[in-house]
């Protein structure tokens, strides 16, 4: 896991997104991201990493069990985080939006 927290973590928002890239809330989330924010993809949203149309930030993270479930574990090890990592991210970010 790299770049888990931004330098400016105090004011950054943690976005947790569980919608597939086709879902209208996926694009709404993309539009709401600020440069210092952290995006965690969970459940169906991890498919965004395989989606050639999805424009997600380079430092996006994704839950490893959801990647593995969808056959994407081997391809995206760099982005993968555990539930434990997600807990730590929620500790560090008082402001969290679940999309």
């Amino acid at each position, binding site marked *: 896991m790299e770049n888990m927290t931004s330098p400016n973590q105090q004011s950054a928002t943690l976005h*947790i997104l*569980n*919608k*597939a890239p086709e*879902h209208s809330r996926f694009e709404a989330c993309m539009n709401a991201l600020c440069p210092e924010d952290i995006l965690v993809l*969970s*459940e*169906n*949203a991890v498919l965004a990493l395989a989606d050639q149309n999805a424009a997600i930030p380079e430092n996006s993270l994704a*839950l490893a*069990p959801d990647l593995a479930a969808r056959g994407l574990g081997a391809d995206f090890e760099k982005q993968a985080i*555990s*539930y*434990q990592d*997600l*807990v*730590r991210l*929620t*500790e*560090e970010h*008082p402001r*969290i939006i*679940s*999309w």
Partner: protein
Amino acid sequence: MPTSLTYTLVITGAPWTSQAPQTALAFARELVSAGHRIDRVFLYGDGIHLASALSTPPSDERHWPREWTEFLAEHGIPAVACIASALRRGLVDEAEQARYELTGSNLRPPFEIAGLGEWVEGNMKSDRVIYFHGSV
């Protein structure tokens, strides 16, 4: 390691419809392992189906309502299904059964039924409120 924080978890996606209860449980277990306190779990909308006492998945599948209630009981975590969501969707406890003269009740303890005030209180008392929605 930061000091222990207090969390409220809100689940709005139903088991066997969404992945929300599974993700929430995995997250909740890690919260407890990390030394955090879960103030309460609040089920809202379709999420109330997680509190069904009658869910009967095939024996070779995971049983999310049972796993959730075992987790809640083990750690003494209060869990509430929103009464407005629950009554419409057919989740009732014995008190509501008696009040509305229904043929039965189907709430799985330790889940309880209460109002949205429980969610507001969770908001006020917790350092973090995390939502687990359906994904469709």
